[in-house]
C-alpha cells in the first residue's frame, strides 16, 4: 500500500489484482455470513440461495480480475492516503460516540476540529471559531427551525442565565411578531 507515486503502466496491473483480491474478501464475507442459510429449491427459493450465488459470482469475477491483472498491462495501484481517512472518518466516529451523551454542543466542535486535522491548510484559531459558530448555527437550524430531535445540550453545559436570556429573547421576538401581525391586519 505504500508505493511510490506516479508509477507508469507496468507489465502487470496492480489495480486489477488488488481489485480482484478485494472482491474475493467481499465474497468470502458474504459466503460465510450466508453459510447456514437454506438454499431451498427452485419452486421455493430459500433465503440462502441469493447470497451464496452472489458470493460465488463475485468470487468468480475476483479471480477473473486477478488473472487479467497478472496477464495484461495496466495502471498501478493508486497511493492510499492515511491522514485523510483517519481524521475524516475518525471525526464521524467521534460524532457518533458523543452525540447522545454530550449533544451537539460537544459532538459538533469535536467533529469539526478532528476532521479539520486532515488538511495541512487548517489554521488553529480560525477553525476553533468556525467550529463554535457552525455548531451554534446548526443547532439553531436543526433544533429550533426544523424541530429535529437531535440532542443539543443534555449535560446542561450552557449556563442557565444564557439559556434563560435566549428563551426570553425568543419570547420577545415572538411577541413582537404577533404585535406586528396584529398591526398589519387590523
Amino acid at each position, binding site marked *: 500500500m505504500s508505493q511510490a507515486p506516479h508509477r507508469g503502466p507496468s507489465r502487470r496491473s496492480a489495480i486489477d489484482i488488488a481489485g480482484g483480491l478485494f472482491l474475493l474478501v467481499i465474497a468470502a464475507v458474504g459466503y460465510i455470513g*450466508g453459510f447456514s442459510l437454506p438454499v431451498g429449491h427452485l419452486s421455493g427459493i430459500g433465503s440462502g440461495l441469493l447470497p451464496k450465488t452472489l458470493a460465488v459470482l463475485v468470487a468468480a469475477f475476483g479471480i477473473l*480480475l486477478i488473472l487479467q491483472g497478472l496477464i495484461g498491462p495496466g495502471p498501478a495501484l493508486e497511493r492510499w492516503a492515511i491522514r*485523510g481517512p483517519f481524521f*475524516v472518518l475518525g471525526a464521524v*466516529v467521534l460524532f457518533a460516540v458523543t452525540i447522545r451523551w454530550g449533544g451537539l454542543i460537544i459532538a459538533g466542535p469535536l*467533529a*469539526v476540529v478532528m476532521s479539520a486535522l486532515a*488538511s495541512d491548510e487548517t489554521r488553529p484559531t480560525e477553525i476553533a471559531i468556525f*467550529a463554535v459558530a457552525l455548531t451554534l448555527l446548526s443547532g439553531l437550524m436543526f433544533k429550533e427551525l426544523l424541530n429535529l430531535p437531535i440532542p443539543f445540550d443534555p449535560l446542561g453545559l450552557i449556563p442557565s442565565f444564557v439559556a434563560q436570556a435566549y428563551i426570553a429573547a425568543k419570547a420577545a421576538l415572538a411577541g413582537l411578531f404577533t404585535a406586528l401581525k396584529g398591526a398589519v391586519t387590523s
Partner: protein
Amino acid sequence: MTFDLISNLALGLAVALTLKNLWLCFLGCLIGTLIGVLPGVGPIATITMLLPITFGIDPVGALIMLAGIYYGAQYGGSTTAILVNIPGEATSVVTTLDGHQMAKQGRAGVALGIAAIGSFIAGCVATVIIAALAAPLTAMALLFGPADYFALMVLGLMFAVVLARGSVPKAIAIILVGILLSTVGTDLESGEERLTFGWSEISDGLDVAVLAMGLFGFAEILRNLEVTQARDVVRAAIGNLLPNRQDFAQSAAPIARGTLIGAILGLLPGNGAVLGPFASYTIEKKLADDPSRFGRGAIEGVAGPESANNAGAQTAFIPLLALGIPPNAVMALMVGAMTIHGIVPGPQIMTKQPNLFWGMITSMWIGNLMLLVINLPLIGLWVRFLKVPYRLMFPAIILLCCIGIYSINNSPVEVLMTAGFGLFGYAVVKFGFEPAPMLLGFVLGRLMEEKLRQALVISRGSFMTFVDRPLSAGLLLLSLITIVLAVLPAIRKGREEVFQEAD
C-alpha cells in the same frame, strides 16, 4: 386523452400552487442549490444530507420539497462546473468544457444564464412528456408480471454496466456486490437473518441513505483531500446575466436538440440520463460550422448539454413513478425518501394518490421556474460562497452529513456505519471500481429477489417462465445484446472516447 392530460395537470397545479407547497418548493430549490454548489458535493450527497429536513412535512409537501432539492442540487452542480471547473457529478462534466472557458472570458453570467434558460425550457418539455407518458406507461405496468419486472431490472443493470466507466468485468462485479449488500437483513419470506453476523442493528437491512452518504459523501471528501485541486474560482467579472440576441440565436437549436436527446435517454433504465449531456455535446460539435470553437467557450456547448441534463434528470422520474424502478442512484435515494414518508413508488401511486402524483409533476415545472427566478439574481452570493476555502468547507460538510444521518433514525450506530461505508467507498474507488452502479444494484437487488421468487413460485420452479413470456424474453434478449455490444472491441473504443472527452 388530451383532456385527461389537461385536467390532470390542472389537478397538479391546484396541489402545487398552494401557498405552503410553493414555499416548500422554493425552500427546496434554494437549499438544494446552496448545498449543491459546494464543490465535490453532488446531488446524491445533497439529498442524503437534506433528507431529515423534510421529516416534519406531509408526504406531498415533502416530495415537492425533495424534488426541489434535487433540481437545486443539479443546478448548483452546473454553477460550480462553470465557475470553478469542478463538476459536482458526472452529468455536469461536459459543462466544464465550454462553460468554464466562457467564465474565463468574462462571460460567466451568460453561461449561467443560458444554462438556466436551457434547463427551464427542457424542464417544461420534460414535464409535459412525463404527464403524457405517465398514464400509458402505468397502464403498461399492469401487464408486467414478476418475471417481466425481473427482466426489466436486469436490462437496467446491463445499461448501468455499459454506462459505467472502466472495464466491463469490474462494472458487473461491483453491481453484484451491490446486490449482495441488498440481501443483508431479515429475509422477508422466512424471517431468517441474513449476513447480519448476529448484529441486531442491521437486521432491518442496510439503509440506502447510510450507504449513499458513505459512498458519495465521505469517500468524495477523502478523494478531494488527496488531490490538492487548484480550485480555479473565476476571477473575471460575472458579466451580464442575460444572453444577447446572438447568443439566443446560437443556442435555440442546441437547446431544442439537447432537450429531445436528454428526455429520451432519461427514460432508459440504468442511468441513461448520464449519457444525455455527452451525446448532446458530441452532436453539437459535429453539427457546428466551426467545431474548433468547442472547448474554447462555445455557448452551444453549454446550452445543449445543460438542456439535455435537465430533461434527462426529469424524465428519469418516469421509470420510478410508473414502474417503481429507480433508473439511477439519485432516484434510488428518492425511493428511500419516499419509503420514509410511507409512499411505495410504483404504478399504484397514480391511481391511488393522484394529487401526490400530479402535484409532484407540476411542482417540477414550478421548481424549474423558481430556479430561473431565484438563482440568477443570487449568482453573486453563490460566487462568494464558492470562494470559501476548502479547509473550512469540508469540516462543515462533514458536520452536516453527521447531523443528517443521525436525524434519519436518531441512531448513532448509523453514523458509525456511514463512516464504515466511507472507508469501503474509498477502497472501491482506489481499486478502480465505480460506486454509482453499486448503489443501483443495492436498490434494485431487493426488488429483483422479490420478483424472482414470485416468478418462480408462479411457474412452480421453472426458469422457462422467463423465456416463455414474450415481454421478459424480449427484455432479457435486449440485455444480452447490450452486454455483448459492450464487450465488442469497436463499441468499447467508442465508449472510451465518449468518456475521454470528459477527461
